[in-house]
């Protein structure tokens, strides 16, 4: 095995390997839509965030516009504060409503933003005033059973 043949084969091997890494990054890991640096933050306060996780998508009209960056509990008001990182290209009005929604019946939870008619836009670090908490299935079932029981006692 002479030197040039070895060089050729090693070249093919390294090219294949690097190609595989690029393929994994672009096609499997979707690096093309990987932007973290550009964006601004918005805070949203929720009574209950349900199963919302860090890095969950933030969607407006179904389009992903950002990610949930941080979730913490406000020790004074006992509200959950979710910090959202929104892409710079998207601006939202001051009366935007943030709600926690579920994609499908068993899918992941995400934050939905519905923009209002206000002319003032939210700035970096701004607070979304109107929020709608996650629907907790147990509470829903509890309410339903309570309602049924109350109905039953009325009839008597």
């Amino acid at each position: 095995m002479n030197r040039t043949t070895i060089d050729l084969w090693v070249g093919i091997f390294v090219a294949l390997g690097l190609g595989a890494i690029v393929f994994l990054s672009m096609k499997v890991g979707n690096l093309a839509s990987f932007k973290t640096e550009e964006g601004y933050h918005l805070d949203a306060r929720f009574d209950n965030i349900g199963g919302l996780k860090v890095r969950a998508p933030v969607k407006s009209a179904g389009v992903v516009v950002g990610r949930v960056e941080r979730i913490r509990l406000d020790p004074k008001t006992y509200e959950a504060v979710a910090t959202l990182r929104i892409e710079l290209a998207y601006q939202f009005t001051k009366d935007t409503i943030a709600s926690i929604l579920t994609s499908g019946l068993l899918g992941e939870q995400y934050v939905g933003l519905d923009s209002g008619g206000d002319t003032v836009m939210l700035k970096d670090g701004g607070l979304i005033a109107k929020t709608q908490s996650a629907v907790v299935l147990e509470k829903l079932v509890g309410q339903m059973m309570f309602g049924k029981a109350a109905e039953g006692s009325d009839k008597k």
Partner: protein
Amino acid sequence: MAEIARILRRLGAGAIDGIWRLGYASRFLAMVLLASAMAFRRFSLTMRELYFAGVLSLVIIGVSGLFVGMVLALQGFETLQNFGAAEAVGVLVATSLVKELGPVVAGLLFASRAGSAITAEIGLMKTTEQLSAMEMMAVNPLARVVAPRFWAGVISMPLLAAIFSVMGVFGGWLVAVKLLGVDNGTFWSQMQAQIDFRLGIVNGIIKSFVFGIAITAIAVYEGYDATPTAEGVASATTRTVVESALAVLAIDFVLTVFMFRGTGL
């Protein structure tokens, strides 16, 4: 009483021996790193080892990756179908390959295919006194023989693991899309939506890089440390495969704990 002392003495001897070997291996690795300037200055030496460790492992890595991906897709499809989530088979295949199976299985194959060859080669060089002959000629065998093999292994391993993962994803795609009729677009879009670049791909590459260091370090050490007899080389080769397999699995657990803990993935 004498019996207890005897057992304790054996335990103590084992512990001292183990620690001594670990220290010796670490010192050996440090000396290889110090002597590795030649592996890069005369890169044709490393090139030759890259050919033996990397290029010749391509076939086994590629074929294994293909079959692992195909089996994953087949089995995953059966289970996911029960929950009406057959489209998620792409996510299942790609996640398990990129994060775990790619680096680990490629590492195990690399240890048995290339690691054992490195050990046997260096061990036989020691047995036939080629290493001593080099020292006589004032050639440092660590720089001339060990370092090129070490670096070739460290370079090859991440590339091989990536090729393994890609072949696995391709195999999964073949079975899921072509054979079982999962929608092509859904297969890729679900995969791209679920796999995070830094958490998935980058961590997988870091894993395979660390495995490459561990496997090749064990292989060159066992070869250099082999008893210079036929049996010595044989048992050193066996030890390389066993130790690197254990090292890969143990390191994988530790790395996984640090990489994916608390990320909800």
